[in-house]
């Protein structure tokens, strides 16, 4: 049986020095479709959950309507779509239906006016109910949430809904416009549901964001992507990061003792998927050793493929040749460095939130240095500006913290396996 996906497993080092103690090793798992698949191969089930609160009035609302219209126009006749609008009340504007009555749907969209406050949970709940009506595991089930403000007193409920969505294979993409919304909430919704998040800085970019989402839905190459890793005796998994659509620490979800079980949802045919696994390799004598085995399984419903498996072994050599043990794979090194920038930024923001300005500043300075080394001058400059803001006011700026949160998470965007520099 041929494989439709190509799985590469690259070790940070093929040759490690002999050591009396355990040592850190890294494995990069790169999953891509073998060949360019046609677009729209999998039917979609899309729920738009749109903020119509008072602050959306004007350019934001008009651009949102245009973007929602774009989604409706570009889904196929057999795809399901629903549109839910919310402020502090919720309305199912377009109940779940096939995306055929496009003019009628856009007419309903045109009638929406901005009013009221913001209660995201109610919108999410209604959006998920509509999604359930068209739900099938053979469809790409996706919820797109757009908001410009902070939700009122229901963040915990939002997170529970996202967790439920994730368990049911529904990925939530949370998009925030402007500066006044809670990026932590939207990023957590993405993390819990295996989805994505975008920061839309200007209303005219709402259409671009929705276009990207439609493209993503139509580029899915495989569903139900799972990576199972069984490590050999003495090898311990420590941390796992997924990199697509953004860098996320998935360790708590995927690590169980000496096994790795990652449910990765759908595979984007253009972006692929990357996992970085950090492990501890035990003290061993000179020789070649198997580190473990990875098993990647997936479905391609359109081709009648279900649970197809690809197995890859990870191995390493322990050697006394010091020169040979210093060679580090450049691809892995580059990704580990990006994860390092992401980790430093996350810790900096946590310290800042906790009021520990000294530590926050130190971590931001370290992040700036790593970002400069990666050639990310603009992001490094943002980190420097936030350091000044911390020293002056004791807080980060709302725009600056968003830029850092999203900038470091999306360092792997445009990854082709080529190293910058």
């Amino acid at each position: 049986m041929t494989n439709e996906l190509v799985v590469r497993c690259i070790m940070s080092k093929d040759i490690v020095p002999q050591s009396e103690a355990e040592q850190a090793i890294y494995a990069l798992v790169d999953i891509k479709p073998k060949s360019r698949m046609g677009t729209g191969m999998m039917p979609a089930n899309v729920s738009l959950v749109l903020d119509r609160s008072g602050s959306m009035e004007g350019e934001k609302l008009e651009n949102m309507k245009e973007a929602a219209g774009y989604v409706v126009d570009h889904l196929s006749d057999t795809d399901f779509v629903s549109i839910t609008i919310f402020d502090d009340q919720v309305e199912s504007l377009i109940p779940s239906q096939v995306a055929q009555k496009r003019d009628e749907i856009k007419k309903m969209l045109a009638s929406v006016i901005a009013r009221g406050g913001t209660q995201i949970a109610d919108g999410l709940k209604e959006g998920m109910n509509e999604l359930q009506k068209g739900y099938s595991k053979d469809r790409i089930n996706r919820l797109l949430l757009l908001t410009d403000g902070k939700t009122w007193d229901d963040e915990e409920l939002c997170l529970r809904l996202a967790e439920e969505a994730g368990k049911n294979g529904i990925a939530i993409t949370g998009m925030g416009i402007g500066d006044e919304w809670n990026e932590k909430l939207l990023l957590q919704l993405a993390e819990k549901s295996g989805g994505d998040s975008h920061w839309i800085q200007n209303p005219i970019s709402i259409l671009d964001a929705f276009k990207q989402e439609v493209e993503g839905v139509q580029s899915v190459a495989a569903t139900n992507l799972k990576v199972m890793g069984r490590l050999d005796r003495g090898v311990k998994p420590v941390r796992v990061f997924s990199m697509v659509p953004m860098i996320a620490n998935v360790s708590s979800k995927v690590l169980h003792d000496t096994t790795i079980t990652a449910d990765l949802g759908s595979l984007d045919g253009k972006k692929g998927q990357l996992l970085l696994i950090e492990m501890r390799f035990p003290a061993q004598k000179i020789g070649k050793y198997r580190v473990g085995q990875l098993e990647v399984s997936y479905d391609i419903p359109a081709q009648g493929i279900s649970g197809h498996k690809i197995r890859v072994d990870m191995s390493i050599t322990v050697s006394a040749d010091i020169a040979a043990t210093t060679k580090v794979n450049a691809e892995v090194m580059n990704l580990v460095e990006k994860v390092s920038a992401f980790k430093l930024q996350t810790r900096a923001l946590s310290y800042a939130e906790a009021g520990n300005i000294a530590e926050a500043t130190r971590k931001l300075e370290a992040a700036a240095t790593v970002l400069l080394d990666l050639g990310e001058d603009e992001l490094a400059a943002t980190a420097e500006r936030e350091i000044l803001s911390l020293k002056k006011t004791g807080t980060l700026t709302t725009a600056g913290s968003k830029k850092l949160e999203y900038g470091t998470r999306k360092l792997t965007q445009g990854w082709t396996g080529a190293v910058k520099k």
Partner: protein
Amino acid sequence: MKCKECQVENIEGALFCEECGARLEVKPDMAEIVSEGGGAPLVLQSSEGNTLAIPEKEEVMIGREDPISEVFPDVDLTSLGGLEKGVSRKHAIIHRVGVDYVVEDMGSTNGTYINKKRIQPHARQVIKPGDEIKFGKLSLSVKAA
């Protein structure tokens, strides 16, 4: 494995310091260059060709003279446009550690850069011939005397 920047211990094999993110692994080609530069006295040269000797002392203060605050650095960058280019009065120290020249930024306002990479305050980094070192916006080349 101790991080050269922040001195925190990291597990053997780690690629970047858990504490400060500094690279822990030395690329093979970098190791060779370090050994080539060992031993020769170094000087700093500006883009206009002015050469600044680095005094033979264990600690050489680099900065900008300010008689009012009684700051008299060993290497004074005022005449090279230090004030306009954001050089602090006590900007950095160059340590002699064996045969090596090691730079430490003293918490300067506009930072110290080695080959375009900003070094963290009080973290130490070896410099060698061919390096570019920037104090604020003042760029100097490291050369063998």
